[in-house]
């Protein structure tokens, strides 16, 4: 039992929380970074290799597209269906082979990344699926290469949904990171476990909850803002209102009252 009235309690609490927060952020950031780099192309390939999509026949081979799609879909579903705690234990040999050790905060990133990738692949999949098929058709009609289609059509259109999905992925990585104490990982979850549960300090739990809440809020807020910016809804804060007004006028062709500028020949007022 920890005595909150003891003089060393608060300095110790803050030291512990600081270290836990740093470890959580460290694990989450690295796991998310790897997840993003690996998951983004996999998600694009997963949708792209569907029949009728832009990658249905990679290297001109239709069977190859089908095979890649089937394997990828299977692996993603497999990854998604294994409980994290099981995955974490099952991955111990892999982590040891990869990093030489499986105990601690650093090695805990391996299972965290592997649980996040299938999740994120689905996020990307949904985002890409949402892109208007007409845009792919237009790009194809222009004789654009696949790479150009991905860069100039698919990604610009999918970014907002991917940004929002990244916020969800980060949240779930933070969520899973609370469990890595099992393999000797640190972080805020471990603080709650060792001080809150094993040593009955309610204050530790309260602070852990507050800090996690703040982290999730900040991540969500930042990425929502980013998503809005990427969707092109607000080209620049100052111009937005005026633009929106003008767009509304233009759309309602019959009601244009301002003097039409050169080239605005759509308006029947001319």
């Amino acid at each position: 039992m920890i005595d909150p009235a003891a003089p060393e309690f608060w300095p110790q609490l803050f030291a512990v929380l600081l270290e836990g927060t740093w470890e959580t952020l460290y694990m989450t950031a690295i796991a998310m970074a790897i997840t993003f780099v690996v998951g983004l192309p996999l998600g694009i390939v997963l949708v792209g290799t569907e029949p009728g999509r832009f990658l249905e026949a990679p290297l001109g081979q239709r069977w190859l597209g089908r095979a890649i799609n089937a394997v990828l879909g299977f692996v993603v579903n497999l990854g998604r269906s294994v409980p994290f705690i099981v995955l974490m234990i099952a991955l111990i040999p892999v982590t040891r082979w990869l990093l030489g050790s499986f105990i601690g905060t650093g090695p805990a990133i391996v299972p965290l990344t592997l649980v996040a990738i299938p999740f994120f692949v689905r996020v990307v999949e949904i985002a890409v699926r949402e892109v208007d098929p007409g845009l792919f058709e237009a790009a194809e009609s222009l004789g654009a290469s696949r790479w150009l289609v991905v860069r100039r059509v698919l990604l610009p259109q999918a970014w907002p949904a991917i940004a929002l999905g990244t916020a969800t992925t980060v949240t779930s990585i933070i969520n899973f990171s609370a469990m890595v104490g099992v393999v000797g990982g640190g972080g805020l979850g471990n603080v709650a476990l060792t001080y809150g549960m094993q040593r009955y300090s309610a204050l530790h739990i309260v602070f852990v909850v507050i800090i996690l809440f703040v982290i999730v809020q900040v991540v969500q807020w930042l990425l929502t803002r980013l998503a809005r910016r990427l969707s092109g809804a607000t080209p620049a804060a100052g111009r937005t209102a005026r633009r929106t007004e003008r767009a509304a006028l233009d759309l309602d062709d019959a009601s244009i009252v301002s003097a039409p500028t050169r080239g605005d020949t759509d308006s029947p007022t001319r």
Partner: protein
Amino acid sequence: MITIDHVSRRFGDGLDAVVALDDVSIEVQRGEIFGVVGQSGAGKSTLLRTVNALERPDSGTVTVDGTVITGLEGAALRQARHKIGMVFQHFNLVGNRTVAQNVEFALEAVGVKGDERRGRALEMLDLVGLAHRAKDRPAQLSGGQRQRVGIARALASQPDVLLSDEATSALDPETTRQILDLIKRLSGELGLTVLLITHEMDVVKRICDSAALMEQGRVVEQGALEQLIRTPGSRVAAELFPVGEAHYTPGHRIIDVTYTGLSADRPVIAQLSRDFGLDVSILGAALETIRGHQAGRTRLAVPGDASVALKVIDRLTSQGVTAWEVHP
């Protein structure tokens, strides 16, 4: 310029199979505007998409400017597509990229780089009267303006052929006319061959040189517009001139009179009554401006038998109008 030769395409298998194209052949001459009309589900869209191989036919060939499109794959197909622009009913612009970037995309596909790309994109926008909106997003433009951007994008790679997939079907009548006039003007200035599909007869009337009528995957009629309106029984012409049903009238013969150009101004029917002493009644009439020229059709009921009808038709023909008997 575009030769569609015995092209067939079916979707699905067995009993569920839908025949979208049933042995379709169409010839589009260089520099002309060719319209394919028909109701939705007639196969127009599938037909148009075989021209730039967005759709592959099960059998038959499509040739554009001597290149057999149906035989192309990969890089060669992309090259061929650079010479075939396409505009869409719903514009298909990338919403979170600027108008200029949307046009630049077409040039990027061709491999034009840097300043030249930006410059040419602006030129294209200027051509459609939208250079001042280059930095806007498509959502900030009206439907008509968006289609102009679509046209600028389609023409950026300097194609010889423009395919139009119901380009004006999402637009109001006034905007439709402006877009059609723009296509007409650009096709003249740039020497484009245009193949368009539409369900609106007005589009054919306004800009098409030739037309084909499609029904359930088949072309039931095709030819130059001037020729079609002079062809007895032409359904395209019947759509263009809604003169009503030909009801059987006892003791009368029904004659359709079609006149174009100058003959539209002459009082041929009044003269007919006078010369033959016949009580000609008018059952229906339609006067249309077809590609800027007056053309009309009148449905007459003439009292008498077949020999009278023949005499009347001879007289009308000698006066430079086209006439034939209609059998109800």
